[in-house]
């Protein structure tokens, strides 16, 4: 096993080295985006009534056809409370956006902070929350076929046999052949539906139409991965549309970032909680599930009514002037602008793009827009310029 591990690590390093020459440099910066819906004449926000609705059905995710499989769980009937956490996430996201003054963050009548300003300009957020949660700790009866393989053969023959063995064993085990052994598992399912209303405090009229947002989650640790307590048709759609698990690529990127951070900025490392051990083989808790679902619906809703900040990661055009690229990689955007502007005109497309990107990184959007538009016109509408325009146009 140690041999396999070393072989795998070795392979990874070889792949890494072979791709370095093709890799791109990235510029990272924060962008403030406007609310997705037009919100007129609202200056302050208050939390209104956040109500848990128990015993009602949460619709299945869109795309689930007729549920034929006979699994234990085929519907989601709200059974737990989540309103307090949804409230906390909504108000936290609104505070981060910085667009509104918060005058009541608790929803209690006595929770107003200070004098209520012009009531016609106060938006009150109400929510009806249906939350379903189910956890199962049990075992799957899994079949195991155990073989003895002769290794005293030429490599090509061994590879063919190993391939055939894997297919045959898997098929036989699935059809119930072999030793039957109970394999423990933990499976956790969650579903939330929130109907948000934003109403004017002065007259109770809706400022935007009711926003109904749903989110689902399912995860299993151990047991038989082909078996679930949730109907197959529902599970498939949830995994395809709502899977919030980090991909392998995200995990690797995150690891790289954390390790770089511990060397460069240990305070930030602790503030982000990167010093806390994380093991993906440990099943999530009920609180983890609650937090995932509440934060997702809260984020979706607040982006509709408030400006929000996102981190953009944009590739530097690698065909541009190498000195300009080096300055951008060093975050010396001001210097990069001065340098790129001093190059003889007309600039080629990559330099125009890098110049626009440098202006964008500095938050100088009109100049960035000017160069993105120049690049778009000169390139007959290259996508990277169009994306740039979309980001900086406000």
């Amino acid at each position, binding site marked *: 096993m140690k041999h396999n591990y070393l072989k795998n690590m070795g392979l990874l390093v070889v792949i890494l080295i072979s791709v370095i020459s093709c890799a791109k440099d990235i510029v990272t910066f924060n962008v403030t985006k406007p609310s997705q819906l037009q919100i007129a004449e609202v200056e302050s926000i208050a939390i209104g009534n956040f109500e848990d609705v128990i015993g009602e059905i949460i619709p299945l995710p869109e795309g689930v056809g007729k549920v034929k499989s006979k699994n234990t769980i085929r519907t989601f009937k709200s059974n737990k409370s989540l309103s307090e956490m949804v409230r906390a996430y909504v108000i936290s996201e609104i505070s981060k956006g910085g667009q509104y003054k918060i005058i009541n963050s608790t929803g209690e009548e006595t929770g107003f902070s200070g*004098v209520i300003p012009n009531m016609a300009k106060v938006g009150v957020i109400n929510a009806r929350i249906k939350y379903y949660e189910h956890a199962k700790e049990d075992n799957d009866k899994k079949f195991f076929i155990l073989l003895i393989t002769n290794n005293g053969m030429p490599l090509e023959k061994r590879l063919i046999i190993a391939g055939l063995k894997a297919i045959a064993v898997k098929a036989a085990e699935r059809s119930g052949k072999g030793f039957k052994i109970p*394999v423990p598992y933990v499976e956790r399912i969650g579903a939330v539906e929130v109907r948000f209303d934003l109403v004017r405090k002065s007259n109770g009229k809706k400022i935007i139409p009711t926003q109904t947002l749903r989110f689902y989650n399912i995860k299993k640790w151990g047991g038989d991965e082909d078996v679930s307590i949730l109907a197959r048709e529902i599970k498939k759609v949830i995994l395809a549309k709502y899977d919030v698990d980090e991909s392998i*690529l995200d995990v690797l990127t995150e690891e790289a970032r954390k390790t770089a951070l511990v060397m460069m900025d240990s305070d930030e490392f602790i503030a982000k909680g990167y010093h806390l051990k994380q093991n993906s083989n440990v099943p999530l808790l009920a609180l983890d599930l609650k937090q995932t679902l509440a934060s997702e619906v809260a984020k979706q809703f607040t982006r509709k009514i408030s400006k929000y900040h996102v981190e953009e990661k944009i590739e530097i055009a690698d065909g541009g002037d190498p000195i300009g690229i080096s300055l951008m990689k060093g975050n010396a955007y001001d210097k990069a602008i001065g340098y790129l502007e001093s190059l003889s005109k007309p600039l080629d497309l990559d330099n125009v793009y890098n110049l626009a990107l440098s202006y964008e990184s500095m938050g100088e959007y009109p100049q960035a827009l000017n160069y993105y538009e120049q690049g778009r016109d000169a390139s007959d509408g290259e996508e990277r310029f169009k994306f740039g325009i979309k980001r900086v146009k406000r």
Partner: protein
Amino acid sequence: MVYSNKKILTVLYSMLVFLLLLLVVGCAPKVNISVQIPAEINTEGIKKVAIGKFEVAFIEESVQLERNGNWVIKKIKLTEAQKQAISDQVRAKIVNVLGATPYFSLIYTDEFAKLENDAALQEMISAEGYKSKEVDAIINGKIWLEMQKTDGSDVAKAEMEYVQGGGPNSLSVTVDKVVWWPYKSMRGNMTLEMKMTRLVPTEVIAINLDTRTFSHRTGGKPAGLLGSFTSATQSLRDGMGANKGKIENSDAVYPSFEQLVSDLATSIATNFVRRVAVTEKVVSYQIAEGGDPQAKMLIEAGAYEMGIERLQSVTAREKNPNDLYNLGLSFEAIGEYGLAGTFYNDAWERDKEALIFAQGIGRIERILREYPQVKRQLSEKSE
């Protein structure tokens, strides 16, 4: 899952950069510099802060035992006094983190902490029914906390290789076996709402909801490639981080409930403080190689003034870009950002493709952009 080639290349590149960073940055000489970061939000006029109550929304602790696929789950009942003790512990941690920033003065009063909840606090603030008149703002919050310990086993097939002799025609077979791999694990989640309210005029300044989790497992079936990689990088970080050498960092040691509460709360509070206060942090920057070795030694030892003297005389004779960069670095370390920028630019003029010089310029650009804000925020507090 399907990934685009571009994405894969980017990530693999990040990993390679990361591996190279370990090799290069880990060995490269560095200098630790203290920098000030401005508050994210405007806390103008707030100098004296009191800490209110941290209300418990949810606390649960449980222990799971699994044998042969059968589970026994035991929830540990916490009394109101125990819950209050946890709440007090979180509050104490926040006092600790806030006390470390020179930006705010803490007013040690229990007046606000005695109130039942946030609504009661807001009512008291609105009615100006408080006695501690010198307080400018109050920080209070809400806690969700869950911890679980598990004792169980993974069941998985493993291949055992049997080799006899080891010669060309010797016996070599692989035998499949089902193996029970015992493990112990622990997971914790703390979700903490922190709210800062100004007293006069009454205003909610910031609300932050943050989650920190901890999950650790010892034993169990061998991890795959990704698991091995993440656990190796984690061990590496433990060995080089701020907590290096601490016994809690050992893979074989599980933190106590109190220790975990403390770690989770500290991390969230540190993040909150960054939103509302100017924070000072220590960052490591690389010293350029290939310049005057004596000057490099002085910088490494933190003798920046002597380093500057030495480098000024060295660069007067010969303008080596590495010496110019190190001169800039020494000026940056003592807070002379204008001069630092000048020397970084001089170094860059002599080697325009050197990333380290561009990084120096980039740092100064950022400091100069943020400096007026930091200066304004700090002068408001010292008035």
